[in-house]
């Protein structure tokens, strides 16, 4: 049998298991309950929660983008490990607070978190729509990853549109049937798989291409020391871009709306324990960076379309490994992409149905909302699919772009939890200005002042404007305000 046939069989086998696990997890629960679909009844346990969190951060970006960064830029790739480890830490303090607020007001989304605290439907709708756009952008990166993997591992036999359709179709099916619980249990399976595969394959590649890790890095350090440094001669990134990229990722990570849904879905104690065991996920990224460094000096940059393809290229073309290795790496990368896509798809659906539609049409019954949500999963899924197939950009630009818009929620969220003085008008004006500035510096302007990340520029303006406008538009004390602060 040809390599690509074995790889295809393994990947299809993986997809079938993923589908079975996802659909099975949703079975036997109260399938007519909105609460079950949205936040798994608020009762997710530690292990499931941990993988749900890990699955979301361990994405197509980690599997393809992280080796790509290490291969192309060198030391700046460390940013991925630093932000993965540190971004979770504030959750120990704010997660339990958000969880208690969510249970008290029966929240499912970030949009309703804003709407209740600031008593503003407009704010709720703006947040819901921004969350939807960012999620679609994020989903597009995962879908592109899935499609690339299928395409490369089968040596071009599975076209781009079909690979994305197969893998993401399965995600949409299990999310629509089983809701958050299905996403969580598939993440346990997918998480274990990608962790094992990344370590085994990562170490194997380094040892085969170089005598050992030490020899590999010694060679790079003698030939091009700047490659292993930041802001030096021969470095790919300066100190300010490096630092602000970490900052924007650390602040932005917890602002992702699906983190709020997860906070409502578990108890304060589970949230805290999740934070404690989380760094293990950051360390799982280490072998993937090693793969990128190992490819340095071996893979000719002109032979691959983008740095993201360096891991699959190594396996299929340079090292000529057996077909089952193709298949395993393919399955691992699919798992990484799918475990991020499921939670985001689920959440984007909640934000639009619970956050936007339910705010506009008030008297919908829970049953109708649940029905709209299930259909919504297909709608959101379809939209993400179409944008991926007919749109297209580099993986990392897309992810950082989505992050840039999401991070602008931070001033409003932290004020809701800690500052009584913030008003709806203040938060809205800060958010709008921040998002516009971010958009301008990210996509329109060629450079930013001093190389500061566009998201940080937006954030600074956002905070200043939010404080000034809030002070000018003081509102009366409200009960919700008190509950948010005291929770």
């Amino acid at each position, binding site marked *: 049998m040809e390599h690509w046939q074995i790889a295809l069989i393994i990947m299809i086998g993986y997809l079938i298991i993923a589908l079975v696990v996802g659909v099975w997890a949703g079975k036997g629960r109260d399938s007519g309950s909105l609460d079950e679909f949205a936040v798994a009844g608020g009762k997710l346990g530690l292990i499931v929660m941990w993988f749900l969190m890990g699955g979301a951060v361990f994405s197509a970006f980690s599997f393809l983008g992280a080796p790509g960064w290490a291969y192309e830029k060198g030391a700046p790739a460390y940013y991925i490990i630093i932000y993965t480890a540190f971004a979770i*830490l504030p959750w120990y303090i704010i997660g339990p607070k958000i969880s208690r607020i969510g249970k008290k007001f029966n929240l499912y989304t970030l949009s309703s978190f804003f709407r209740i605290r600031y008593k503003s439907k407009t704010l709720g709708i703006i947040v819901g729509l921004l969350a939807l756009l960012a999620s679609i952008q994020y989903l597009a990166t995962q879908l592109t990853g899935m499609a690339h993997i299928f395409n490369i591992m089968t040596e071009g036999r599975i076209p781009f549109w079909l690979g994305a359709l197969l893998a993401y179709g399965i995600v949409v099916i299990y999310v629509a049937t089983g809701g958050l619980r299905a996403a969580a249990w598939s993440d346990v399976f997918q998480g274990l798989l990608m962790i094992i595969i990344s370590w085994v394959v990562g170490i194997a590649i380094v040892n085969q291409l170089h005598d050992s890790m030490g020899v590999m890095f010694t060679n790079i350090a003698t030939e091009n020391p700047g490659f292993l440094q930041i802001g030096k001669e021969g470095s790919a990134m300066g100190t300010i871009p490096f630092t602000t990229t970490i900052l924007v990722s650390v602040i932005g990570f917890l602002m992702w709306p699906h983190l709020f849904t997860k906070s409502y879905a578990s108890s304060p104690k589970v949230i805290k324990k999740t934070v404690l065991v989380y760094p293990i996920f950051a360390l799982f990224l280490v072998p993937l960076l090693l793969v990128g460094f190992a490819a340095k000096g071996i893979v000719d940059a002109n032979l691959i379309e983008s740095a993201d393809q360096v891991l699959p290229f190594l396996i299929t073309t340079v090292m000529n490994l057996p077909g089952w290795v193709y298949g395993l790496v393919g399955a691992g990368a699919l798992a990484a992409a799918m475990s991020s896509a499921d939670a985001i798809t689920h959440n984007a659906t909640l934000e639009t149905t619970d956050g936007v539609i339910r705010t506009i049409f008030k008297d919908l019954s829970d049953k109708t909302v649940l029905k709209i949500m299930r259909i919504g999963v297909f709608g959101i899924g379809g939209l993400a699919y179409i944008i991926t197939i007919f749109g297209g950009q580099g993986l990392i630009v897309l992810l950082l772009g989505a992050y840039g818009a999401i991070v602008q929620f931070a001033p409003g969220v932290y004020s809701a939890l800690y500052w009584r003085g913030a008003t709806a008008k203040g938060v809205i004006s800060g958010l709008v200005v921040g998002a516009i500035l971010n958009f301008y510096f990210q996509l329109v302007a060629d450079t930013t002042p001093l190389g500061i990340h566009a998201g940080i520029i937006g954030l600074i303006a956002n905070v200043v404007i939010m404080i000034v406008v809030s002070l000018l538009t003081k509102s009366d004390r409200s009960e919700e305000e008190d509950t948010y602060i005291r929770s």
Partner: protein
Amino acid sequence: MSKKKFTTIYILVVTIPFLLLIFPLFEIANRATPIIMGLPFSFFYIILVILITFSGVLILYKFDPDHQFEEGDE
């Protein structure tokens, strides 16, 4: 330990190591050599700081005034 005091200590414990990993402080480790345990110095340093931070958080968890009273373990 009061809840407020715990929160303050927690914030310090996680912020200080974070500052060690971004500029300007990261400059102290911004070099390729020596190679330690097969890794460039900067890479090794980052992993070390992450491990220390989480050991710190793990120890701190034992002193969390909240967690004796909370329901819903698992």
